[in-house]
């Protein structure tokens, strides 16, 4: 609790003790009123002052004014009837208790969430004249060398130039498994160095580093307001004046009608009392605080799991996801092509791969690179000569004096060699050596181990349709989709086609269900922004993805997509619960108040009690770990 809250607590306790003591005190008449005035002023003086200022600034319908009118009215009735002063004091007292609770809860969750996102590095170690000095990370220029000791946070993105260690990335990705780094590896800021000393050459400024971007994103996330928040803000704007006007009507109309129309006694006191209970209920606090608090907690909880949501509005849209479209490469598959089989080979597999890698050594095509990776050793280019690249079909080259042909079946036929077709899916690389068929190598993109589970989890979370977009040939795409359980596949797409396919899907789907597009953030910015909600995954270190997407998954685990949807659903459920609960209870109490069944104590519950319950419920949105 801060100083202000402590002072308020003291005032609440003093007023409560005084009020109870006075209840038993044997005084009556004017003296009793004066004595009761003491706890009333102790607890309510600031409200009265604020109400006065509000009137001067023509802010009639502000809470302070309402509370002031309600309590002064109740006091006046008590004086008139020489009755119960405790009600007026209790209204003020509980109102203040509610305010105190709210400010405590909000402060607490603010701190909670900033602790969750405690990845901001305070300093960077720079070596100067053989000694380590701590400097502000902002002052470290690109290309400087920094040192990160065990237990410290990596302050700036960079490349390891000396040392090896394991890094704890859990603050960034929610992943508890440490990541091993060694010389030459890129390293992102925000990770915690666990074991060894690392010397790092920075490749970005602090402001451009991952950690700054993430913090910026999270801190500003709840500024993009959701439709629920806008609704509540608008509701609050009409709710308070409307209740106040009906309070006025309730105080004046029934007595007048009774007097003039029915010839009964007007009973001014009873009707004014009912009107005053209206004023107590008219404060929209519960709604206005609990909705943004729910979103704030939901976004905070999600970021703890490595899911960054850029705004409350996106969390809201995400919860309505009915269709998830994947860009296959990098989301469901690892996006790295690997040799997955070698068939009909006339020589040793390793030898065949060696020839293929050597022949393709000049090419930077992903297929060529995967062959070079499969070969695994440094390539001696002097063994290769007479390289001839035949665009679209393959490569001819001389390796160790043998003529090697590497390519597709078109190339083979051109050389009058009959290729053996393959029953496995993937890209087939045929090889011919010295004019004779030497076998083929199958290269395929590796499906992520969690992909199938991820699709099942999406279905379980209520996503009706899953779609896969890919540039791959039809057979490969169909096979991957079938093995994962994806409903619809569009294959052999050019990058530009993806936008038009997503637009088609957007037009087909029902209005309520939203379409989410999941990409790896590379080359799919237009699609990410075209979809109702763009999800980029594997974003550690990829600025483009962080810029373009609405939801950013820090690691590349596709299971997080379903988790993000579950988090959003939980958060939105809490929001709707709070809206329905708060409006429901208030409406019920207004009705009971108008009928004279509800007294001021019930009105206090409708105001403060509902707020406390709504705030506690809102904080539930923070707990998403086991969702």
């Amino acid at each position: 609790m801060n100083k202000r809250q402590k002072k308020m607590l003291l005032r609440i306790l003093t007023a409560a003790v005084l009020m109870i003591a006075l209840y038993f005190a044997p005084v009556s008449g004017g003296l009793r009123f004066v004595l009761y005035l003491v706890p009333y002023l102790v607890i309510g003086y600031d409200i009265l002052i604020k109400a006065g200022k509000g009137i001067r600034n023509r802010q009639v319908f502000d809470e302070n004014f309402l509370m002031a009118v309600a309590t002064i009215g109740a006091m006046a009735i008590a004086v008139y009837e020489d009755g119960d002063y405790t009600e007026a004091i209790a209204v003020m007292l509980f109102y203040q208790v509610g305010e105190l609770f709210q400010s405590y809860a909000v402060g607490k969750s603010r701190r909670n969430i900033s602790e969750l996102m405690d990845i901001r590095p305070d300093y960077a170690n720079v070596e100067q004249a053989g000694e380590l000095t701590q400097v502000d990370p902002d002052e470290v220029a690109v290309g400087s060398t920094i040192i990160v000791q065990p237990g410290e946070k990596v302050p700036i993105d960079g490349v390891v130039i000396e040392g090896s260690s394991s890094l704890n990335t859990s603050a960034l990705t929610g992943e508890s498994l440490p990541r091993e780094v060694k010389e030459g590896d890129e390293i992102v800021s925000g990770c915690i160095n666990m074991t060894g000393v690392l010397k790092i050459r920075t490749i970005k400024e602090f402001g451009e580093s991952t950690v700054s971007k993430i913090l910026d994103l999270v801190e500003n996330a709840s500024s993009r307001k959701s439709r629920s928040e806008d609704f509540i803000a608008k509701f609050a704007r009409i709710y308070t004046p409307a209740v106040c006007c009906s309070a006025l009507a309730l105080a004046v109309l029934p007595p007048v009608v009774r007097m003039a129309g029915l010839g009964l006694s007007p009973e001014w006191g009873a009707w004014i009392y009912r009107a005053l209970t209206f004023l107590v209920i008219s404060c929209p606090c519960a709604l206005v605080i609990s909705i943004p608090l729910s979103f704030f907690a939901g976004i905070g909880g999600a970021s703890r799991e490595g899911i960054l949501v850029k705004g409350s509005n996106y969390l809201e849209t995400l919860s309505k996801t009915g269709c998830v479209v994947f860009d296959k490469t990098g989301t469901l598959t690892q996006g790295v092509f690997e040799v997955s089989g070698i068939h009909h080979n006339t020589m040793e597999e390793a030898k065949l791969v060696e020839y293929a890698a050597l022949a393709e050594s000049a090419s930077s095509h992903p297929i060529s690179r995967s062959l070079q990776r499969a070969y695994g050793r440094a390539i001696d280019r002097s063994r290769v000569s007479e390289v001839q690249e035949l665009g679209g079909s393959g490569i001819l080259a001389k390796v160790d004096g043998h003529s090697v042909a590497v390519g597709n079946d078109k190339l083979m036929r051109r050389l009058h060699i009959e290729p053996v077709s393959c029953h496995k899916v993937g890209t087939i690389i045929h090889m011919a050596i010295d004019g004779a068929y030497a076998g083929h190598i199958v290269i395929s993109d590796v499906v992520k181990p969690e992909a199938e589970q991820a699709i099942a989890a999406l279905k379980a979370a209520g996503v009706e349709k899953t779609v896969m977009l890919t540039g791959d040939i039809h057979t490969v795409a169909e096979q991957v989709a079938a093995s994962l359980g994806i409903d619809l596949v569009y294959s052999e797409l050019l990058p530009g086609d993806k936008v038009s396919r997503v637009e088609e899907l957007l037009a087909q789907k029902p209005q309520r269900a939203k379409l989410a597009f999941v990409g790896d953030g590379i080359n799919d910015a237009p699609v990410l922004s075209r979809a109702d909600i763009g999800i980029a995954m594997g974003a550690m270190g990829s600025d483009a993805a962080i810029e373009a997407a609405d939801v950013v998954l820090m690691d590349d685990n596709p299971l997080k997509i379903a988790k993000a949807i579950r988090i959003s659903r939980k958060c939105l459920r809490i929001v709707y619960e709070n809206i329905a609960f708060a409006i429901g209870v208030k409406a019920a109490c207004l009705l009971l108040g108008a009928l004279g069944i509800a007294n001021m104590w019930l009105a206090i519950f409708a105001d403060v009690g509902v707020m406390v319950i709504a705030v506690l419920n809102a904080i539930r949105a923070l707990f998403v770990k086991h969702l």
Partner: protein
Amino acid sequence: MKKTYKIDVDCANCANKMEEAARRTQGVKDAVVNFMTLKMIVEFEEGQEPKKVMQEVRRNCKKVEDDCEIFI
């Protein structure tokens, strides 16, 4: 041009009122108050001097909620 300011305010409804007041201030194109992070993001109209406009924003906010502060 957009700028972010730290604010101090006690209740969520007051934050909404501050947002309204800021939006209505001359020279302000749009304003968002984030109660949870206690920040005000103000987008100024072309050719406006943020410092001057913010003085006005602060005055208007004080009118609707006496107990608020904007750290300019």
